[in-house]
């Protein structure tokens, strides 16, 4: 086992790792940025005033997290955070398709946020020990803020899944909407753990401490019970791990019973993102050289 060397600055990154690391950071940045944008679309129109405040505050955090990651990427490839956030063509963005869907109705937003926050929670824990020190430091900060997001989203999932009408007639509208939202989102959610480009290189260097496949399994393990209790769709079966995989040490793996939707990390995006991109880059594109 090679000893993993800490990489303390962008200048210290070995040449073969520069592009893979930059692409990894860009994926993290784009995930947070696009999700933050959709969350901010509730400002002024959330179902209750307190959620108007909550969504706006959460969106602000997410865009702040995106900024951290864009700054890290910019430091490696020699550009600016603004140029990365607004100056790329749609096919150059690397977010998972889960975050680029239009915010939809409230149940859709909560379902998507729950899937994302729980997955991000697992992902961030793995980055906390990254050999790339700037990433580990950023993540340490981000985690402290994410606890509030996770609590918010878990509370709302529970509330929507367990709401009953007050007039003694069973009204499972909230539960039905949540179920429908999850059914449409699960294929995208699996796409969150689409392996990163050059993942092996990043693992060897200790920049990633666990593979996307491992993280995906940890994530599913962490949420299965919640979905079971709430009687919400969880489209996976437990199977014995394949003998040639690194998951031999565990008794079972989750296998999806649905077709995952990959492609986000390769720059393949859905129509919702095209519309979002038009809108969010419009001002920047009018004059990319402008000083603000």
């Amino acid at each position, binding site marked *: 086992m090679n000893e993993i060397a800490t990489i303390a600055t962008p200048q210290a990154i070995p040449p073969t790792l520069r592009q893979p690391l930059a692409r990894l950071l860009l994926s993290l940045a784009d995930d947070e940025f696009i999700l933050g944008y959709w969350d901010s679309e509730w400002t002024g129109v959330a179902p209750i005033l*307190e959620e108007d405040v909550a969504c706006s*505050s*959460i969106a602000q955090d997410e*865009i702040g997290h995106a*900024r951290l990651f864009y700054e890290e990427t910019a430091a490696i490839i020699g550009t600016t955070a603004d140029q990365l956030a607004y100056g790329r063509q749609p096919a150059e963005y690397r977010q998972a398709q889960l975050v680029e869907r239009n915010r939809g109705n409230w149940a859709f937003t909560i379902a998507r946020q729950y899937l994302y926050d729980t997955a991000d929670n697992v992902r961030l824990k793995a980055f906390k020990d990254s050999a790339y020190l700037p990433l580990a430091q950023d993540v340490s*900060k981000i985690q402290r803020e994410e*606890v*509030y997001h996770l609590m*918010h989203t878990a509370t709302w999932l529970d509330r929507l899944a367990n709401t009953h009408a007050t007039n003694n007639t069973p009204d499972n509208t909230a539960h039905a909407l949540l179920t429908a939202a999850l059914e449409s989102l699960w294929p995208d959610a699996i796409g969150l753990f689409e392996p990163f480009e050059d993942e092996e290189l990043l693992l060897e260097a200790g920049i990633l401490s666990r593979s996307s496949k491992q993280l995906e399994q940890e994530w599913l393990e962490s949420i299965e019970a919640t979905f079971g209790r709430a009687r919400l769709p969880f489209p996976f079966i437990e199977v014995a791990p394949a003998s040639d995989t690194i998951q031999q040490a565990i008794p079972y793996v989750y296998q999806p019973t649905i077709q995952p939707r990959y492609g986000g990390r390769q720059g393949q995006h859905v129509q919702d993102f095209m519309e979002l991109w038009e809108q969010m880059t419009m001002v920047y594109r009018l004059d990319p050289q402008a000083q603000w």
Partner: protein
Amino acid sequence: MPTTIDEEQVWEALKEVPDPELPAISVIDMGIVRRVQIDPQTSSIVIDITPTFAGCPALDRIQTDIKARLRAFASQITVNITMQEPWNTDMLSAEARQKLHSVGIAPPPMMGHGKAIPLLMGHPLTCPYCGSQQTTLENVFGPTPCRAIAYCDSCHQPFEQFKPV
């Protein structure tokens, strides 16, 4: 320009740079100034600061304000953002806590190795106006990333609660 730059004076000057969103409190009180490096040869000062929250929109303004305040000391002022040893609410000075209290913001509980959510939600909040603990947490989220919204049932005033982070 002076040929020596007194570090003590630089730190004193920084006490006059306010947090743009909490003007009663300085960047020193907030605990966001990490390092002051002075090079009298090149007449330059480098300040390292760290954000309270990653999404803090005041960061650019703080950088500008620090540069403006220190202009008298050197010809080259640089303000860097560092994420080394990320900011947490325990870094607020005792003065900061007092000043927050005096402007109607309940200071955050000390964290130590504790967890933020139980600290915020598992203990009664203290009204900064009347001192009562007959209070309700209305919203974990508030007007800025750092503040939650609470209400005092005793003196009937809303107040902000600084979130432990």
